[in-house]
C-alpha cells in the first residue's frame, strides 16, 4: 500500500513535473511561433489558384471545401502575400497563348477589385509591406511559362505594365527560346532571343524565374541576368532527385548571385520514395498530365484538379506512399545548411500540386514556422524564409530595373 502510494506519488510527481516542464516549453514555442508567424510577411510565390477563378463553383472570398487557397484560409494561415500564377499548357503558343494569359491576368485584377477589403494588388516590395501594415493580403502576379509572350518582346512589356512581377522562362515543354527541364534540349539553354527576353525582364523589373527550366537554361540565365534570379517553386534535388528540383551546385550558384529558392510542397518533388513509386505507375508527372489534359480538353482548372484526384486515388490504394508535410521543413533546412538562411523561401504550388499530409491547404502554414523554431532557427531567420528573402530579391530587381531604365 505504502509502496504503491510512494510509487504513485513519485510517478505523479515525476510525470507532473516532466509533463509540466515539457508542456510549458512546448507551449512557449508554439506561442512564440504563432506570434512570430502572424506578425510576419508570409509570402508564397506560387499558387495556381488563378485557374480556379474561372470556375463558377469557386469563390475566392468564401471558404471552399476543396483546393488549397481562398481568402478565409489565407487569413487563417497568416498567408498575406500571394503570387497568382498565370498558367496555360505549354503547347499552346502564339496569339491564343497571349490572349489566354491576358484573360487570367484580368481575372486576378477583377478578383482583387471584388475583394478589395481583403486584397490589394502589389507591384513592389514596398507595396507588399504597405499592404501588410494595412492588414491586407498582397496579390501579385507571376507568369508561369515564357510561351505566353508569343515570341514577342512587346507582349512581355505589356505583361510588365499589367503588373506581372516574375516570369518562369518555360513550363513543362521547351518554348521557342528556352529549354525546359522536362523536355528534350533544343536550344542548348537559352537562344539569343531568350537572352534578350532575360535582359528585357531585368529592364522591366520582372523577376527571372528558373523553376521548370533545364540546368543549362538556368546557368545561361544566371549569366545573362543583371538581377538575382528566383526559383518560384522548386525543391532540393539532393533530397529528391527530380529534374524540377535544384542540385546543391545550382542552389549555391543561385545564392552567390543573391537569388532565392522557394520550396515547392509537391509530394513528388520533396519525397524520393514517392517520386520513384509515382514514376513507376504513371511514367512521370508529364505523361500523367498529358493524358489528363486530353481528358479535360484544355480546361486548366479541370487538369489541376484531376491530377490531384489521380494522386489521391493512388495513395488511398497504397500504390503511392504517404508523404508528411515535415519533408517541406527538411528541404528548407537543407538549403539553409548549404548556403545560409538568406536564400530560401516558400513556393507551395498550392492548387497546382498534390500536398503532403498535414499541409492540406494554406491554413496549415503556421506549422512551418513552428517547426523551424523547434529546429532552433532564430526569429529573424524565420522571417526571412517566410517572406523577407523574396522581398529582398524584389527590391534588388526594382533597383536594377530603374538603373537600366535610366541608361
Amino acid at each position, binding site marked *: 500500500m505504502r509502496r504503491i502510494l510512494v510509487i504513485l506519488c513519485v510517478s505523479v510527481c515525476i510525470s507532473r513535473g516532466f509533463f509540466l516542464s515539457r508542456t510549458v516549453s512546448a507551449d512557449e514555442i508554439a506561442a512564440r511561433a504563432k506570434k512570430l508567424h502572424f506578425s510576419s510577411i508570409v509570402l508564397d510565390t506560387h499558387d495556381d489558384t488563378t485557374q480556379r477563378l474561372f470556375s463558377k463553383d469557386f469563390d475566392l472570398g468564401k471558404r471552399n471545401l476543396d483546393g488549397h487557397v481562398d481568402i478565409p484560409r489565407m487569413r487563417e494561415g497568416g498567408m498575406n502575400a500571394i503570387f497568382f500564377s498565370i498558367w496555360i499548357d505549354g503547347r499552346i503558343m502564339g*496569339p491564343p497563348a497571349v490572349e489566354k494569359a491576358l484573360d487570367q491576368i*484580368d481575372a486576378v485584377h477583377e478578383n482583387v477589385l471584388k475583394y478589395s477589403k481583403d486584397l490589394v494588388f502589389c507591384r513592389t516590395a514596398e507595396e507588399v509591406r504597405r499592404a501588410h501594415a494595412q492588414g491586407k493580403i498582397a496579390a501579385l502576379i507571376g507568369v508561369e511559362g515564357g510561351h505566353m509572350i508569343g515570341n514577342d518582346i512587346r507582349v512581355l512589356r505589356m505583361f510588365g505594365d499589367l503588373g506581372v512581377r516574375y516570369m518562369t522562362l518555360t513550363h513543362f515543354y521547351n518554348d521557342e527560346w528556352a529549354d525546359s527541364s522536362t523536355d528534350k534540349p533544343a536550344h542548348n539553354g537559352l537562344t539569343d532571343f531568350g537572352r534578350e527576353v532575360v535582359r528585357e525582364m531585368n529592364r522591366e523589373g520582372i523577376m527571372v524565374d528558373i523553376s521548370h527550366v533545364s540546368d543549362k537554361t538556368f546557368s545561361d540565365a544566371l549569366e545573362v541576368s543583371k538581377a538575382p534570379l528566383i526559383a518560384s517553386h522548386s525543391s532540393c534535388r539532393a533530397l529528391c532527385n527530380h529534374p524540377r528540383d535544384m542540385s546543391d551546385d545550382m542552389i549555391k550558384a543561385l545564392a552567390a548571385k543573391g537569388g532565392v529558392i522557394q520550396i515547392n510542397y509537391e509530394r513528388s518533388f520533396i519525397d524520393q520514395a514517392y517520386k520513384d513509386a509515382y514514376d513507376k505507375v504513371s511514367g512521370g508527372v508529364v505523361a500523367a498530365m498529358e493524358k489528363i489534359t486530353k481528358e479535360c480538353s484544355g480546361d486548366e482548372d479541370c487538369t489541376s484538379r484531376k491530377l490531384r484526384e489521380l494522386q489521391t486515388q493512388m495513395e488511398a490504394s497504397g500504390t503511392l506512399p504517404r508523404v508528411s508535410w515535415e519533408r517541406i521543413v527538411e528541404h528548407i533546412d537543407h538549403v539553409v545548411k548549404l548556403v545560409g538562411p538568406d536564400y530560401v523561401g516558400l513556393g507551395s504550388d498550392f492548387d497546382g500540386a498534390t500536398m503532403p499530409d498535414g499541409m492540406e491547404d494554406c491554413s496549415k502554414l503556421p506549422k512551418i514556422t513552428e517547426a523551424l523554431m523547434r529546429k532552433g532557427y532564430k526569429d529573424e531567420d524565420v522571417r526571412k524564409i517566410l517572406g523577407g528573402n523574396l522581398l529582398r530579391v524584389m527590391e534588388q530587381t526594382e533597383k536594377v530595373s530603374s538603373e537600366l531604365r535610366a541608361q
Partner: protein
Amino acid sequence: MLRIFLTAALGVCACCFLAVAVRPRDISARARKLHFSSIVVDTHDDTTQRLLDEKFDLGARHTDGSIDIPRMREGGLDAIFFSIWIPSKITGREAVSRALAQIAAVREQVRAHPKDLVLATTAAEVRVAHKQGRIAALMGVEGGHMINSDLDVLRNFASLGVRYMTLTHSGNDEWADSSTDTAAHNGLSDFGKEVVREMNRLGIIVDISHVSDKTFYVALEVSKAPMIASHSSCRVLCDVPRNMTDQMMKDLAAKGGVIQINYHVGFLSQEFRNAEKANPEINKAIGEEVQKRCGGDEACQLLEGDRLTREHVERGELPRVDWKQIIEHVDHAVKVAGVDHVGLGSDFDGANMPYGMEDASKLPKITDALLKKGYSEDDVKKILGENTLRVMAEVERVSRELSKQPQK
C-alpha cells in the same frame, strides 16, 4: 512682254500668298497664344495603322499622312486618341490579336519617344502631360467586333489603356447595328447592353460614331456615363448616316456627351457627297486602284485613298472642300447642342482631309477662326479639349462608383 511679265509676277505673288496663307502669321497673336496654352485633344487618329510598319518613325516629319510628332508639336496637338482599327469583316480571335498588336504598337511608340509622348488613361493624366510639355497618347478601339463578343477581352483592352470603344465600325457586329449596314439587332442586343454597362464599369467611354440611330438611342438609355461621338459631323449640313441629326446631338448633350467633329470631306460637304453619289464610278475606281496598290495593307489603303481622292478633286471631277467647313460644323453643333458639347475628332490618317487642313500642323487655324467668329476664349478652350476632358472625368467618376461593389 509686259503681259508675260505681269502674269509671271502674279504667278509669283500667288505663290507667295499661298505660302503665307499656311504660315502662322495668318493666325492672330491672340489665337496663337490661346491655342498653344490650351489642351488640344483629338479623339480620332488612324495613325496607328502606320505604326505597324516598323520603318515608320513617328518622331520624324513626314511628307505624307497627317500626323507625326513634329507636326503635332507645330499644330499644338496635346492629346491624341490613337484609333485601334481593323475592318469589320475581320472577326473572331484574329480580330482580337490584331487589335492587341495595335495596342502594343501604340505603347511601343510611347516607349520609343519618352520625351515627347506619355501614355494617358485619365483626364488628370492628360493635364499632367500637358504641364510637362508632353503629348498625351490615348487609345480608342474603333469597332466592337474586336472584343469577339467576350467581356474578358474588353477588360483586357481596358487594362492595356483603351479609353473609348466605338460600338461598331462600318458593318454590324454580333451585338450592335452600324449606320452603314442593314439593321440586325434593333440597335443593341442584350449582350450589347451588357457591353455598354461593362464599359461604364471599366471607365471606357461609349463611342457612338458609326452606329445606327437606333443603336445610339439604346446606348444612350443604357449608359450611366456620358457618351461621345469620337468622329462624326452634322447630318443637317451633310446628309450621311455617319453624321448626327440635330435631335441626336441635343439628346447626346442632354446627357453630358460631346460630338467630336470629323474633318472628312465626305462628311463635311453636301456638295462633295452629291458629287460622289452622282459619280459612283469615281469611288469604284479609287477602290480598285487602292486595292491594286495596297492589297490588305490598311495603312496604305487609308493614305492612298486620300491621295487618289485629291487627284480627282485636282482634276475637277470632285468638288474642292475648304477647311472652313469644319468651322461651320463646329458652329452648327454649338448652336444646336451648346458649346459644352462639341469637340474635335479629325479622322486624320483615316479620311480625306479638306484643303487647308492637310495635317495636324494646321490646327491653330481652327482656334483663329472660332475667335474671329466671336467665340470667347473659354468657349474655344472647351471645344479644343476641355469638353472631352470633362466627359473623361465623368466617365471615371461613374466607373469608380460602379466598381464599389459591396463585398460578400
